[in-house]
């Protein structure tokens, strides 16, 4: 049965990430993105074994420093670290010295004194990871910084799309929702355009950044236009916690004009994929029948997140020393 299994091996164009940190998709080339996605394919297989653990990062210490609430990303990183046999440390901000007024830089330097190998940082300020990158020897992995980037989310989205569609090049990807506050959008635009996809972004005019077209995307406030013939429809959460003004009249009205329903989805390609980075507001950006429907790959995204984060951790564990020696 298995003698017929294919032995096609993708020959990677590059074999290393020449970076100490993963701060954003903006720093990666298309070849480096492909390397991470290829490595993630091998990592995904580890999660299907009876013993879901390999010794690759044995003896490495990874600190998960989360200044913002997170379920998916934090657990996903922790599982990825454990599957690679790294020692992990979770710092929950509520119980740390941060509540006593310690600054991010001081917290990081104190952690650094205990010689971790990597720090995974989630922070509400854009650029927090860049600050840490400058003052820390450890590799810094951005797990979401303010409204700036969320690179591992974009990588797992790309992995999920590539798994179904074989390649990203030439696909029409419609990203609909709160474009203004979304770091997921910024990372995804960078990644998808680098890999040759056609990106459409859609939302209320008040939530479309004025300079968005600069990034090589088509912007519209017409959901029908965005969804027509789309290969992928990605919904973004309406981020009420980041909204200080009134960007639209009501959540009910948002759903009526922009919410993804089965009726709207019929305009997309017949094999469309529905994606959402979570957490979902059901009945706001996405109807429950779409979220739970046959086109939804939302739970595949979560499953793939572990494999993609394992790939990033593995590749960066070698990359840090690599750059110093160069």
């Amino acid at each position, binding site marked *: 049965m298995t003698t017929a*299994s294919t*032995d096609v*091996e993708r020959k990677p164009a590059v074999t290393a990430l020449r970076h100490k940190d993963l701060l954003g998709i903006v720093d990666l080339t298309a070849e480096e993105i492909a390397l991470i996605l290829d490595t993630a394919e*091998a990592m995904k297989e580890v999660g299907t074994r009876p*013993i879901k653990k*390999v010794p690759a990062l044995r003896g490495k210490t990874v600190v998960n420093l989360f200044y913002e609430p997170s379920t998916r990303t934090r657990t996903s990183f922790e599982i990825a670290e454990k599957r690679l046999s790294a020692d992990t440390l979770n710092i929950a901000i509520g119980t740390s010295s941060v509540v006593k007024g310690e600054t991010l830089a001081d917290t990081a330097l104190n952690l650094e004194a205990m010689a971790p190998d990597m720090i995974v940082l989630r922070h509400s300020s854009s650029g927090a990871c860049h600050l840490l990158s400058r003052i820390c020897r450890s590799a810094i992995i951005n797990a979401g910084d303010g409204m700036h980037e969320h690179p591992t989310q974009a990588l797992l989205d790309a992995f999920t799309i590539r798994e179904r569609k074989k390649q990203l090049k030439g696909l029409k990807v419609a990203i609909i929702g709160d474009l203004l506050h979304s770091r997921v959008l910024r990372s995804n635009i960078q990644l998808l355009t680098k890999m040759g996809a056609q990106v459409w972004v859609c939302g209320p005019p008040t939530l479309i950044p004025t300079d968005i077209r600069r990034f090589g995307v088509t912007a519209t406030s017409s959901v029908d236009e965005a969804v027509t013939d789309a290969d992928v429809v990605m919904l973004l959460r309406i981020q009420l916690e980041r909204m200080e003004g009134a960007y639209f009249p009501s959540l009910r009205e948002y759903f009526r004009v922009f919410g993804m329903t089965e009726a709207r989805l019929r305009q997309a390609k017949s094999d469309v994929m529905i994606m959402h980075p979570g957490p979902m507001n059901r009945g706001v950006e996405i109807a429950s029948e779409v979220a739970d429907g046959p086109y939804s790959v939302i739970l595949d995204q979560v499953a793939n997140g572990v494999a993609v984060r394992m790939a990033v951790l*593995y590749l960066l*564990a*070698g990359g840090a020393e690599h750059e110093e020696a160069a």
Partner: protein
Amino acid sequence: MPVVMDADRIGRTLARIAHEIVERNKGVDDLALVGVRRRGVPIAKRLARAIKEITGHDVPTGALDITLYRDDLMRHAVGPQPTVRRTEIQFSIDNRKILLVDDVLYTGRTTRAALDALIDYGRPKGIQLIVLVDRGHRELPIKADYVGKNLPTSPEESVQVRLLEIDGQDEVVLEGGGA
């Protein structure tokens, strides 16, 4: 660069090993072949074909990537991480006799990593090691059960196994050394 095995010789050697496998295991009922990536994989597939010709039975065949088990991982002062490839073992290894296949046996470190990797998939009844070339210089207490060719080498030399499936031709070449 002396060619130490040509395509004919490699073909005859693998046919001989296939016969030895059938003889020593008194049949092929609970056998499975697992090739170590990369060049152990095509060798394992060729052995499976040869065994099928001899016995008429299919032997399940898989591919093992040992990158994540290497003992030199994270110890390089310079240099990129080795590329990780997929392991594909689509059968249970529990209570089977596993024939582990690699191209060259040298220090034994790859085999050590392969044994660790394999055991994470289950508890085989036994593991036997097949190599096309044994070039000596073991650093670990590891010995092959089936050897295509014993090739005395110096540590300065390198043994290149080239296979049709990966390199476009079949040959074993001894390179470098005293020159």
